[in-house]
């Protein structure tokens, strides 16, 4: 008996033993075992950096001086941000950019979806063509739109001058036009995304609802108001939520297009955050700024999800 035990132990430690032990686990334990790597990865990639950023926001840490003593400064960074007129201005620029793009993109996206939803020749081809801008990288889009916006050689100036003789149109260099330049590019790029989600909503509406509405002699507006709009509202709200959150964080495309200029007319909060963090190396200060932006987006997202659930129900 004593001689068999040492031989049995190595066998139990091998892969066969592992599977034997695993087969005796409860469903709950097995589920935890399967999701444990994902949870560990999530903690390492998402939760730890978030907590570390919150900690740094209360310090005077500078990432370019790692040997420097880290001093706890309490709420000083937050007070400086919330007392800065410049940051206040960047917040207004961001709000203006987000609101303008969301209104235009939602209207155009919904309109395009209603058009594309009709059966016509080449419908699949045009859907693909419309979706192309969405598939491009924002940095690439920003770079090639700087060429399109060139006042002397750019096609944008040429097209505008074809219809209205206004001379060379400097979209990026003009204080009045630069905000519209980034709005136009963002709309060009992301309207297809809203269209795609609206199209999914439109395709999910059963045709018998329209047939019933026709029997009741409903006109086109009534069909849209009482059938189409309520049915696609959750999809539309989801699209606006995603785009709104992305636009608050908008960075790469605007940096490539205007770099926040001329002056600071198009300097969004995220662009200023990057300047503070990686040009001035005020890591503690920029961490506080990042936390403020995060809480704002998180709060907005929370109430939006609540509204979405209400619409769905």
């Amino acid at each position, binding site marked *: 008996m004593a001689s068999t035990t040492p031989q049995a132990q190595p066998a139990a430690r091998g892969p066969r033993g592992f599977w034997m032990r695993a087969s005796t686990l409860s469903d709950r334990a097995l589920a935890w075992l399967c999701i444990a790597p994902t949870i560990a990865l999530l903690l390492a990639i998402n939760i730890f950096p978030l907590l570390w950023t919150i900690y740094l926001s209360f310090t005077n840490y500078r990432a370019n001086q790692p040997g420097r003593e880290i001093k706890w400064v309490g709420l000083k960074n937050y007070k400086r941000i919330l007392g800065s007129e410049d940051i206040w201005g960047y917040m207004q620029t961001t709000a203006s950019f987000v609101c303008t793009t969301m209104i235009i993109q939602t209207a155009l996206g919904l309109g395009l979806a209603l058009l594309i939803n009709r059966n016509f020749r080449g419908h699949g081809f045009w859907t693909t063509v419309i979706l192309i801008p969405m598939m491009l990288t924002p940095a690439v889009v920003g770079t090639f739109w700087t060429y399109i916006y060139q006042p002397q050689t750019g096609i944008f100036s040429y097209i505008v001058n074809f219809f209205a003789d206004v001379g060379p149109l400097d979209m990026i260099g003009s204080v009045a036009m630069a905000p519209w330049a980034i709005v136009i590019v963002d709309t060009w790029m992301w309207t297809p995304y809203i269209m795609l989600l609206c199209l999914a909503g439109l395709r999910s509406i059963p045709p018998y609802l329209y047939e019933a509405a026709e029997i009741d002699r409903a006109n086109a507006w009534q069909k849209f108001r009482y059938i189409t709009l309520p049915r696609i509202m959750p999809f539309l709200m989801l699209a606006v939520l995603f785009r709104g959150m992305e636009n608050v964080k908008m960075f790469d495309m605007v940096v490539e297009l205007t770099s926040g200029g001329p002056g600071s007319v198009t300097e969004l909060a995220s662009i200023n955050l990057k300047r503070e963090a990686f040009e001035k190396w005020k890591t503690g200060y920029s961490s506080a700024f990042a936390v403020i932006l995060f809480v704002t987006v998180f709060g907005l997202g*929370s109430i939006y999800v609540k509204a979405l659930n209400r619409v769905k129900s």
Partner: protein
Amino acid sequence: MTIDNANTNGAGRKRRGWVRRGPCETAAAVLIVAGIAMMMQPFSMLLYGYSFVTILTGTLGFVVVSHFPK
């Protein structure tokens, strides 16, 4: 004894009624929206200064009350 019990039950019922998720969530959502409006408005620096506290209170409140019973 009976009267005491009735009072206690009544108070408990009242408290449970107040702690319902719906109104608390609405209040927290109003705080968040007000905070965001304060942060993005172009009129008063004072409002901007208090915007983050308002949003943070609303957001934390929202997270807490979303675990309340319906």
